[in-house]
């Protein structure tokens, strides 16, 4: 499925009658990792939800590999190859780890391919193989995050979107997960859009980033340029 170029233009988003995003423009280049940064309530999560058309009303142009997706429903967008790991992870706590992964592949019909991908997931996250028949709700936060990411990857997506994957996790676990993400991006060219509070880590992983504030993009650029930017340094890196 590889390509994975996402283009968001003039995106407005609202929950019921409360407007949250105003005219947001974002690009995720094919094979690139893009980070969305900003304080709480800036609207980062809403951007992801807008792309997935989950829980939010939108207006604007969202194009994936040349095809407009802003008019489609959540499941149709997922079937086109957009895998969204939501905040809170959305793990099926009452299903086993393996069943969680199989749900990720539920729209696929290639049995052999699914089995091969399961194997790949267990190689990437050995802990999951250990717990494959355990109910996912019993796993720790870090392990559930791995389940969520693996489930998303089972879709064989063009674009992987993650909402605060580091939230509530120990630093070592976070490093492990980010390492896996970087590896996947290098090996398969999967495009990644990641929302992160941890700016340092995000800028290490991503090639480029946008900074949002109260629903608008106020800064955008490569990771190096943002790291050097004085506003970013002051506000988020504490320098």
């Amino acid at each position: 499925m590889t390509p994975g170029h996402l283009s968001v233009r003039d995106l407005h988003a609202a929950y019921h009658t409360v407007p949250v995003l105003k005219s947001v423009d974002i690009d995720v280049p094919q094979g690139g990792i893009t980070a969305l940064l900003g304080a709480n309530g800036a609207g980062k999560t809403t951007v992801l939800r807008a792309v997935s058309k989950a829980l939010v009303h939108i207006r604007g142009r969202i194009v994936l590999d040349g095809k407009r997706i802003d008019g489609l429903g959540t499941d149709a967008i997922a079937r086109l190859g957009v895998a969204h790991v939501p905040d809170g992870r959305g793990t099926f706590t009452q299903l086993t780890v393996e069943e969680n992964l199989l749900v990720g592949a539920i729209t696929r019909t290639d049995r052999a391919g699914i089995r091969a991908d399961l194997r790949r997931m267990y190689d990437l996250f050995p802990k999951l193989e250990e717990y494959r028949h355990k109910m996912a709700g019993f796993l720790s936060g870090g392990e559930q995050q791995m389940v969520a990411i693996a489930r998303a990857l089972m879709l064989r997506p063009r674009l992987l979107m993650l909402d605060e994957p580091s939230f509530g996790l120990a630093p070592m676990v976070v490093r492990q997960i980010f390492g896996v993400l970087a590896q996947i991006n290098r090996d398969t060219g999967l495009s990644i859009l990641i929302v992160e509070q941890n700016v340092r880590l995000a800028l290490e992983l991503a090639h480029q980033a946008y900074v949002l504030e109260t629903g608008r993009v106020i800064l955008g650029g490569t990771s190096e340029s943002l790291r050097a930017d004085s506003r970013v340094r002051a506000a988020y890196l504490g320098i």
Partner: protein
Amino acid sequence: MSDKTTMRLDAPALPSPRAAAAFQRPHAVAAVCVLLALWAVFALHGYWSFKLASVLVLALAVRGLQLLIGTSGQVSLGHGAFFAIGAYAAGITMSQGWLSPYLAIPAAIALCSALGFLFGLPAVRLAGPYLALGTFALAIALPQLLKHPALEDWTGGVSGLSLDPITAPFEGLALHADQWVLLITVAWTAVVYLVLHRLVNGPAGLAWLTLRDHPTAASAVGVDVRKWKAAAFAVSAGVVGAAGALNTCLTNFVSPDNFPIFLSLSLLVGVSIAGPKSIAGTFVAAVFLSFTPDVAEKLSQELTGVLYGLVMLVAVFVVPMLRRWRRRLAMRGGAGPDAAQSTPSK
């Protein structure tokens, strides 16, 4: 389901100045209602006296169930059983001569509360549909139990108990029996509603709210979930028991067939119409419940069921729509300039 609580953002409730003023109103409204009711006691008699008293009884019963559902989030399909227990408690104590009618009602309340607590304790472990099922079972089992030959001496078995009507204790008030009963009903309704009002607006109400919305979090901050859920059951059962006891005083008759599962379902319909907290709603619901069967039966014997069901569906689908419109109107009235540029297209 977990994803609903983590991902849904509710629109913030903007209190308008009108809402603040409304806080003072309920007391005035309530006082006016009580005065009106007292006037009705003297002004009405016969059928209308009876009808008004029935409406009050139903309102009480609905309020009892509403308390359980609205404040503590537990749905019961079997409150008809507590109605029946209250009714029989009053009936038995009066027919056996153990208590005067004036003590029979509090006795019924006490009994139902105790039973409600005992039922509520184990029922705490049941969530949503399971609890509904358990209470459904209670409502179905009770009439059978009441008909059992072993208890016939007290319950009157299948044919039930007939009682002497309650008459006014002293001549001076010049009230007929039915007016006197209406007065008793009005008095008890007012008292119970007042007590519930204090309860719900106090620490108990707060505890119930927390365990309705986030039971796990509630227990984490020290709210004894079991105890409070059972307490909600107890209070709710007591109120419904009061309604049952008053009903006995009103009709001078109790029999097992008066309390079919339909009664429990009607109470549920009542709460659907009334909403989770509206006091006025309970009276609206009571009027519905009291008059709809009469109207339906006049139109068509057969159609009673269909009409009832349709009313329930209307209550479920239409009433929330109305409430949403009302809220949107309130928000537009009280909100700031930002409200104007909302509502994007989907």
